[in-house]
């Protein structure tokens, strides 16, 4: 056959290659981007690579990913290879039946596999975490090993094995000496496939992981909604380049040993090659284990821990570090994207976290369902002294006797718009229904906020559970859907900075940050009124480390800590002492951070809708989302 | 002699800078059973593939029936191939396999049906129409491959080591089968093999190849009895190949003893190689022969005994129906016409073209 590659073929391959690698190149470039926002090139920097060394969260996730992949690969390779060998000794019918079962995790949708395992673990009262993820990974890895080993096993001639048995070798010895060497390449490629799948898996891990445990995938997913921290780009770039180098080296080694072998077919060479491979694999494994031991949260279950579940990017990482240093308490820190997701997690396992930071209406729901612990205020001197009285008063809307919650941040919901793209002054929610801005509008991907906008626009209560009002709001949102570019949460920030959209619904805290990055942006609370919200710390009733949780809350209420936090996350703090300490006058007097009484009087807090109300909203929201 | 059907002239071909065929010239006559014989890597398969159209030579021409077909696509050539390992279409049953070429040519259903049953009858596999290829034995698959090729009524059938994958008994049966087919069809067969026995049994004409060169051409008898060089001698059957000196015409000195021979024209006192077939070495009682020796080894081979005799510092291979036990002191005698004298290769290059490759 013609073995020359024609130019058309080369071009075709190049196009596919470009398609496969364009995103990867993009990520590597982003890892050198000085700006935290992926929408903007802020100059070249190595900072994220340097930060990586200190970013224990990302390193933890990475270590977990590697150790899970390694153990899952080893176990699934052993089980899968043994099964493949054994299957050849079985009846054809049995074999096809077994292969059918084996194929289930491969053919089945990941989402179904993940959910089915999650249900199993729940029913067995398995603590979701390292072990459950590992089991899940082994389960979906086994088929890859078997599908690689079984076909090879079928082609192996039994004569050598039988000869070895004939010479008196015990079966295992005979197997090791005769069949295993033939099988080795297929076992290796099956193992490599299993390892890769394990590293890359997201969906199954997502459903089987518990609290406080993240692999790189789940870590990234939780960050996707609000913009991934650049350290992750840096880490991925390092992994990618490392694997690339390893592959190139092994290819080169193969080519070289191949040449040597063809020149002189000496047994010694073969042996050296073999030993080399074994050493390489062993070295890699040891490196992974060491890394896991150093950074991994895998084996640490110390008593002096506190499991924190906070909204995304809602704390200065240095604050966590300071707390750890001062108290010696290990902080297992998890982030959620929305109150609803937080609720689902906590409802599933009330002991998963020791301290949560939900929003007002969700706290009401938690109280209603008797899921929270009354706080021991004697342990919270800072909370009593420095958090402004008015905020406790507001909090009584959802926590009537101020028994459960310590306010952490507060703010309003409004419209962030780009002055260059929107000429007329924005004063009303109506602007979000203006066809002129089709495809330029970002809506909040959260049920309450989306309906709040629609309800407020019509002058209804933002806590309405009146089916007629909800149905009107639903109609409005469906009508608005074609104009909406995307439903997002914290991504509003990046997209607005990058000029991707003309306007978006956003929390006041984000507005301050985005204005810093793009001065054309302005924040408005529409005249119809809006939501004023309070996020507060609460402790679940079943928390295991309630004492540490109290220490955590009180630590955050220290004025200097609250100030540090405010400057980092830019969400308004209810800590009056901290407010006074803000140095930047513009911010201290900012209308966005600390709106005046008149504006606040137009705003309402969310209250819990009750079960029936939740159902009403959920169904309406599904209708809106599937309207496109 | 019948007319020339295929002419290969000055064919060269290399792969990855390695020369496979070097200026090859070959004429194949109509109705011949021609065998290309040689060790693997000798270029015989490449030659066949060039005739079949699966390779294009780097230089040279392929003339078929007076027409230059060097650049013609395989599907436009009036010849068909039986491939190594059969190359049946595993996704079609036997009838569909055989019908493949006819369907391409848009023959009528009736014609195709007739042809299928004719071909299956010819290869003794009637009733196999609806079996799948994988369910057939190797020998049966081979017959189907042949049937698939011959229904297209080619002028030439190319066979690329067709019996290589079969066991010994089956191979021998198939050899007779192929001779019968050749006679019934009355077409030209070009057959590639590395098995000298196959070649000797079936062929009208044998082309011995090594390292891209034709070493010798001729009838099986010529090739066997009068190998032109040590490679051919060694490759065809067992031989005693001994370095000797041509004293003058019709006299050669082997291991220090002068033997009468029938060869002339090598000059005087010239180094040569001589080939003596094991069955041509006679063992006679001590004193009655030309060279004294001792039997060192003996095995019974059925038709004959195979013995090794140490004589004149050389280990002679001897086939004889008479048993001479180990240790027997014997003399060796060779008739003049059983001594085949060959030129000794003069350079290393020439050597390379000769012995030792397999």
């Amino acid at each position, binding site marked *: 056959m013609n073995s020359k590659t024609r130019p058309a073929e080369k071009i075709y*391959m190049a196009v596919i290659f470009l398609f496969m690698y364009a995103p990867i190149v993009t990520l590597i470039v982003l890892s050198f981007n000085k700006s935290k926002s992926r929408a903007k090139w802020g100059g070249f920097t190595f900072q994220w690579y340097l930060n990586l060394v200190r970013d224990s969260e990302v390193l933890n996730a990475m270590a977990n990913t590697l150790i899970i992949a390694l153990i899952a690969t080893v176990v699934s390779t052993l089980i899968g290879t043994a099964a493949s060998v054994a299957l050849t*000794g079985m009846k054809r019918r049995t074999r096809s039946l077994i292969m059918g079962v084996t194929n289930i995790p491969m053919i089945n949708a990941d989402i179904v596999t993940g959910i089915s395992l999650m*249900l199993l673990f729940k029913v067995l009262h398995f603590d979701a975490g390292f072990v459950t993820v590992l089991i899940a990974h082994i389960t979906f890895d086994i088929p890859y090993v078997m599908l690689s080993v079984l076909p090879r096993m079928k082609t192996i001639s039994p004569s050598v094995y039988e000869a070895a048995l004939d010479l008196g070798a015990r079966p295992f010895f005979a197997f090791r000496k005769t069949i295993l060497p033939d099988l080795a390449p297929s076992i290796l490629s099956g193992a490599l496939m299993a390892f890769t799948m394990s590293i890359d898996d997201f969906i199954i891990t997502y459903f089987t992981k518990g609290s406080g445990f993240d692999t790189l995938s789940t870590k990234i997913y939780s960050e996707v909604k609000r913009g991934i921290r650049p350290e992750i780009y840096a880490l991925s770039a390092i992994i990618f380049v490392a694997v690339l180098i390893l592959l190139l080296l092994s290819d080169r080694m193969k080519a070289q040993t191949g040449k040597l072998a063809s020149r002189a077919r000496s047994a010694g060479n073969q042996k050296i090659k073999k030993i080399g491979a074994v050493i390489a694999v062993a070295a890699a494994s040891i490196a992974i284990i060491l890394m896991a031991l150093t950074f991994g949260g895998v084996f640490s279950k110390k008593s002096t821990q506190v499991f924190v579940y906070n909204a995304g990017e809602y704390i200065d990482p240095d604050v966590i570090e300071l707390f750890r240093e001062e108290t010696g308490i290990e902080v297992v820190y998890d982030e959620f994207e929305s109150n609803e*997701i937080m609720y689902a997690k906590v409802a599933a396992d009330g002991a998963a976290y020791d301290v949560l930071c939900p929003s007002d209406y969700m706290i009401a729901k938690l109280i209603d369902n008797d899921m929270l612990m009354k706080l021991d205020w004697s342990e919270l001197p800072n909370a009593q002294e420095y958090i402004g009285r008015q905020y406790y008063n507001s909090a009584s809307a959802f926590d009537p006797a101020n028994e459960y919650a310590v306010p952490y941040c507060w703010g309003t919901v409004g419209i962030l718009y780009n002055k260059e793209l929107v000429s007329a002054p924005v004063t009303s929610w109506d602007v979000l229904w203006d066809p002129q801005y089709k495809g330029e509008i970002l809506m909040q991907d959260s049920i309450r906020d989306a309906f709040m906008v629609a309800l407020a626009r019509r002058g209804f209560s933002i806590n309405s559970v009146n089916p007629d009002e909800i149905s009107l709001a639903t109609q409005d949102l469906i009508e608005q859907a074609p104009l909406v570019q995307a439903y997002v949460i914290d991504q509003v920030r990046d997209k607005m900075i990058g000029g991707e959209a003309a306007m978006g619904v956003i929390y006041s805290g984000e507005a301050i940050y985005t204005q810093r990055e793009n001065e054309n942006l302005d924040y408005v609370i529409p005249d119809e009124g809006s939501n004023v919200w309070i996020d507060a710390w609460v402790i679940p009733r079943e928390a295991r480390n309630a004492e540490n949780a109290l220490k955590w809350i009180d630590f955050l209420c220290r004025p200097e800590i609250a100030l540090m936090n405010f400057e980092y996350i830019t969400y308004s703090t209810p800590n009056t002492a901290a407010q006074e300490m803000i140095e930047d006058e513009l911010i201290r007097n900012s209308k966005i951070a600390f709106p005046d009484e008149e504006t606040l009087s137009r705003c309402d807090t969310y209250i819990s809708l009750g079960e029936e109300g939740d159902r009403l909203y959920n169904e309406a929201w599904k209708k809106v989302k599937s309207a496109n | 002699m019948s007319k020339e059907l295929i002419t290969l002239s000055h064919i060269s071909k290399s792969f990855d800078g390695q020369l496979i065929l070097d200026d090859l010239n070959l004429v194949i006559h109509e109705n011949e059973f021609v065998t290309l014989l040689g060790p693997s890597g000798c270029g015989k398969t490449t030659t066949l593939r060039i005739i079949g159209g699966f390779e294009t030579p780097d230089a040279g021409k392929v003339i078929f029936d007076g027409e230059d077909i060097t650049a013609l696509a395989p599907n436009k050539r009036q010849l068909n*191939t039986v491939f190594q390992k059969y190359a049946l279409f595993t996704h079609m049953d036997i009838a569909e396999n055989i019908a493949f070429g006819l369907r391409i040519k848009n023959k009528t259903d009736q014609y195709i049906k007739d042809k299928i049953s004719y071909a299956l009858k010819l290869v003794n596999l009637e009733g196999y129409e609806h079996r799948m290829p994988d369910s057939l034995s190797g020998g049966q698959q081979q017959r189907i491959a042949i049937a698939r090729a011959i229904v297209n009524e080619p002028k030439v059938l190319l066979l690329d080591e067709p019996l290589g994958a079969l066991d010994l008994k089956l191979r021998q049966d198939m050899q007779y089968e192929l001779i019968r087919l050749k006679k019934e069809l009355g077409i030209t067969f070009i057959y590639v093999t590395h098995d000298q026995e196959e070649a000797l049994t079936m062929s009208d004409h044998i082309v011995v190849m090594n390292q891209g060169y034709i070493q010798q051409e001729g009838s099986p008898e010529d090739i066997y009895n009068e190998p032109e060089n040590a490679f051919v001698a060694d490759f065809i059957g067992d031989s005693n190949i001994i370095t000797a000196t041509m004293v003058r015409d019709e006299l050669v000195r082997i291991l220090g003893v002068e033997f009468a021979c029938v060869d002339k024209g090598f000059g005087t006192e010239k180094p040569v190689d001589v080939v003596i077939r094991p069955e041509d070495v006679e063992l006679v009682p001590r004193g009655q022969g030309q060279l004294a020796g001792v039997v060192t080894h003996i095995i019974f081979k059925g038709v004959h005994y195979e013995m090794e005799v140490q004589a004149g510092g050389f280990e002679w291979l001897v086939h004889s129906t008479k048993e001479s036990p180990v240790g027997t002191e014997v003399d060796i005698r060779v008739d003049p016409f059983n001594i085949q004298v060959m030129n000794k290769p003069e350079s290393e290059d020439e050597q390379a073209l000769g012995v030792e490759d397999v």
Partner: protein
Amino acid sequence: MWKMFKDRRKAGALASPYFAWALIFILVPLMMILWYGFTDDAGVFTMANILSIAQPEHAKSLLLALELSVISTVICFLLAYPLGMILAKNRMSSQGIITTIFILPMWMNFLLRTFSWMTLLENHGVINGVLEFLHLPQIRVINTPGAIVIGMVYNFLPFMIMPIYNSLAKIDENVINAARDLGANPVQTFLRVTLPLTVPGIISGVTMVFIPALTTFAISTMLGGSKILLIGNVIEQEFTLTYDWHLGSGLSIVLMIFIVVNMVVSLISEKKDEQ
């Protein structure tokens, strides 16, 4: 197939860890889904969860998921087949290259790769930047079904290429030569021999692209701007947002019907292949 074990019981013992594993972690969990799917909160048998697929918003998300995954599968096939042929023809069988090219991207996390497409496809993204530089018209694809299809094709293309390449590389070159030898031109050879011989590869490629594409929720969330709800998103929300396991399981069972259909088709073709 040869018998390594004269004694079946020994074979059984060797495979027992696997049997146990498959039973506990593959079959039992599936039973759980069935149980949840066919019961309500009170544990009473109901078909309501399954039938809820007929609700307009569920049916719509399923149909849209079907449409997008079929389109993605077809595109993957059309892209992968020629590529497989080029790779097989050039005997890049030194598997190394194939794995290097198509496995390597998997070491960059799946979500990150998809996320990266956001940066590429956005209205002011990288691709539009390049187009603007070349004075070409801009694309507006982010947050549309088109972007989701791109994400699906990108993520699942390797799963189509590998089985197709493997089945192409397995074809004896002489089988192709035989077809040519018997008078078939290149097109006839392709349609009558090459393509039918790679059907098993195509089926496994189609399965490995279609199923994950049908059930994805991450790709649609990221590249569809949460505007486009696929059946995967609905199921995910039932489990993580509205917390209705029964409904989620019921919808999963509906998904499994498609998976089973796909499995049966590939089993039948496998059997045919083995005959």
